[in-house]
């Protein structure tokens, strides 16, 4: 039980710290800042866990619970930070449950939301891609998560276009 309580309490504390930081000042790069907060919370609470008399196994176990919950939140946060075209479309259609939405309405809804341009901007903003003479080129080497996703994609083979 102590493993569950310590892991869950630490996660709740990190969430509170995240909300306070976000309300005080939004970071420029959300995901690295979020990962930093969760990592710092884990580091800062480690001495307290030892003082409380938790064994190394219990600390490892509650840390694993905490890391799993944190990863879940960070991954879900990316959908909070940027809009999902699919979920935006579903909410737009749901706004008129009786009349529904015509294709023209949906197209004009998406015309106001330039997702492709936004994702290109995000790649430029995070320095993964650079623009040179009107062409987009890879900048440096991609981060580990990016390399992992790209590597895993090879297992899956060709993916239909359209994002």
């Amino acid at each position, binding site marked *: 039980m102590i493993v569950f309580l310590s892991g869950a309490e630490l996660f709740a504390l990190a969430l509170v710290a995240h909300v306070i930081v976000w309300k005080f000042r939004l970071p420029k790069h959300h995901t690295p800042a979020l990962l930093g907060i969760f990592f710092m919370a884990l580091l800062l609470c480690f001495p307290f866990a030892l003082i409380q008399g938790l064994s190394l196994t219990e600390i490892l176990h509650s840390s694993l619970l905490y890391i*799993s919950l944190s990863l879940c939140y960070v991954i879900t946060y990316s959908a909070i930070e940027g809009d999902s075209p699919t979920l935006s479309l579903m909410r737009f259609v749901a706004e008129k449950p009786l009349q529904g939405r015509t294709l023209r309405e949906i197209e004009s809804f998406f015309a106001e939301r330039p997702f492709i341009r936004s994702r290109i901007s995000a790649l430029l903003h995070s320095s993964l891609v650079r623009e040179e003479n009107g062409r987009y080129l890879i900048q440096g080497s991609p981060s580990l998560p990016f390399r992992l996703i790209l590597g895993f994609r090879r297992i899956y083979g060709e993916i239909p276009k359209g*994002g």
Partner: protein
Amino acid sequence: MLDLLIPILSVLVNLTVQVLSFRHWRGSNYFLTIILGFGVGLVAFVVMEIPFLWRSFSTDHLLTALLVNAPIYVCLAYCYYIFVQLGQTSIRIRLYAEIASKTDGLSADEVAREYSDDSLVAVRIQRLVESGDLIKRNGAFFVGRRRLTLIGNILFFAKLFLLGKTSEFDQVNE
């Protein structure tokens, strides 16, 4: 110490089954492979937990299995699902992979041709109609299954609470 490894091993089972079944069906039945991977991983989780609890049963061990190990497995399986999903549907990942695959990169025109907002809409609508989330009736689209609307609403309010806006395009539309 061993019970710490149970959720990690279960996720490895999940991953292996999902990849093998995906390759077996040559890319079709994608969601079925996700569910199959999760299900077999869950069975592996239970199979590994039972002997551990049998050997040294106590309320504390049972609570650890239910409140710690099971959530760890579900969280890691969820992370794996999102990880796979990113490779499948993320526009950013697709664009990056496309740019990386060409030595001279992509021009803005090529990006517009390959990834137009129109094709983005068409693919989304087709997927949603096929999955039953959207229904097409008399030339209009209606919500079929409400699950995605519910997730969309939760994220909408989370965005409003955390970021103080309702869409990433708020500043564009103002």
